[in-house]
């Protein structure tokens, strides 16, 4: 029986992928909406900062490649969604700190 994939590991893997302009991981930018693990298959729903993001196709294919390189993963299904629309409010506290703002509290 194949070992199950830990969703936390999936999030960790996704967080290693930075946005090329800001250097903030796509998880901290709030671009990953959902992660589901079904056996050896990973489902990810993600968005982009804007539909016209010039690096969008590269980030999209990079997410798929990074997930499929994880041990035990047979397939990564990455879905690009536009609802809800991404806003800067979706950036995490860590992301905001990376962008030069003081930590909250």
């Amino acid at each position, binding site marked *: 029986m194949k070992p199950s994939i830990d969703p936390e590991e999936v999030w960790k893997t996704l967080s*290693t*992928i*930075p946005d*090329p*302009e*800001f*250097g*903030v*991981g796509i998880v901290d930018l709030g671009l990953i909406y959902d992660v589901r693990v079904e056996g050896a298959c990973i489902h990810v729903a993600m968005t*982009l*900062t*804007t*539909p*016209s993001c*010039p*690096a*969008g*196709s*590269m*980030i999209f*294919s*990079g*997410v*798929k*490649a*990074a*997930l499929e*390189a994880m041990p035990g993963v047979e397939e990564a299904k990455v879905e*690009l969604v*536009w609802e809800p629309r991404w*806003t*800067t409010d979706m*950036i995490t506290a860590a*992301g*905001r*700190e*990376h*962008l*030069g*703002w*003081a*930590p909250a509290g």
Partner: protein
Amino acid sequence: MFLPPGRSPLAAGATIPLSFVAAGLVAAVLATGWVAFVPGTLALPYLHMHVVALAHAWLLGAMLTITFGAVYQLLPVLANTGFRGAAAAWIHLVLHLVGAATMVFSFLAGRMELVAAGGALVGIGVMLFAINVGDTLRRAHCLDPVLVAFGAAAAWLLVTVAAGLSIALNLHYGWWSLDVLALLRAHAHAGVAGFFVTLLQGAMFRLVPMFTLAEVRDLRGAAASIALSQLGLLLLGPGFVWSNVFLIFSGTALLLGSFLVSGIALHRILQTRKKRHFEPGLRGFFLGLFFLSVAAIGGATLAFGVGTLEAALAYGVVAVLGGVLATIEGMLCKIVPFLVWMRVYGPRVGRRPTPVAGSLGRAAAERFWLRLHAVSVVLLAIGIVFSHLAVLAVGAVLFAAGQCALLVSLASSARHLWRPATPGAVAVSPRPKPAL
């Protein structure tokens, strides 16, 4: 919405924009050398052929060439259409470079028929460019004010070329009686304000939010500022041609109003930004907007007939070198590393560590450029107004030093095209110092 797999967001793999930018930078180096080694050119009357040649070396050779490359890359991205027309763009590049070089050398030789011949080549290139812009806009899903500004800018460029060609041909053949000075003013303003300012007013409402992670809740400010500037330009043109003070004054007032509306809208956008610190490139862009505003106020004073011939040339230098050049070069600090990153490191995302696009250039060199550019433009303007050759010479040397610093940073980015960073050497995510 999102370009389908297999369709690259890069115009011909970024080779078209990067080739235009590289050619424009070569022209900028030559024009910078001219300013540095013959600063006295700027002390000549502004209708002197050497001044006209220098102006065309900067505007046609450097700034327009770079801007063409940027538009070929940027517009299809903003319109979500994908780039089309690579062959025509390459022909455009060749026509433009040959035409611009012919024009500059013919101005120096005082051969207006050759100026017209060079202008015709530039004009054919501009038509190819305008067709490309029109085709991209036609394929866009919806036309917002930003995209409309790109179309309007292309139209102003056609007007500029037509006016310039008319002047050159008429100076040679003397077909009809014209006030050359009035037409030259219309030609210069159609080019600088019509093309460059319209383009800037549109593009900044997409680029600045993109580079600062700011929210654009609506584009009403952009729409209002672009509408005002277009109305102002439509009044300015006939005002210059017919030397009608009322039209010139009304057009200038509308342009100033459009600058004010743009500034307020941009300020509101920046208040929502999530990236706290501005990089040198963005600061350079803002410096250019500041100089353009100063030039607009200066232009309004000149419209009242206040000022000397020297003041008019200083106005041009502040608008062109201080304003337009700083905005273009500021954006180059962002665009060149990003294009290089897309070409070299984009395919590696998720597979190997990739550097941040902004780390490909040299921030320290860009900061040096920014400071020198601000100081040198002020010195050049003072030197021109007071016909002070020593101040002009110092300003010219500082200006050239700033341009060299900028080139160092851009070359550092371009180096990655041939020598990509090894995975072990990649600084994945430099963390800026948080604000207290």
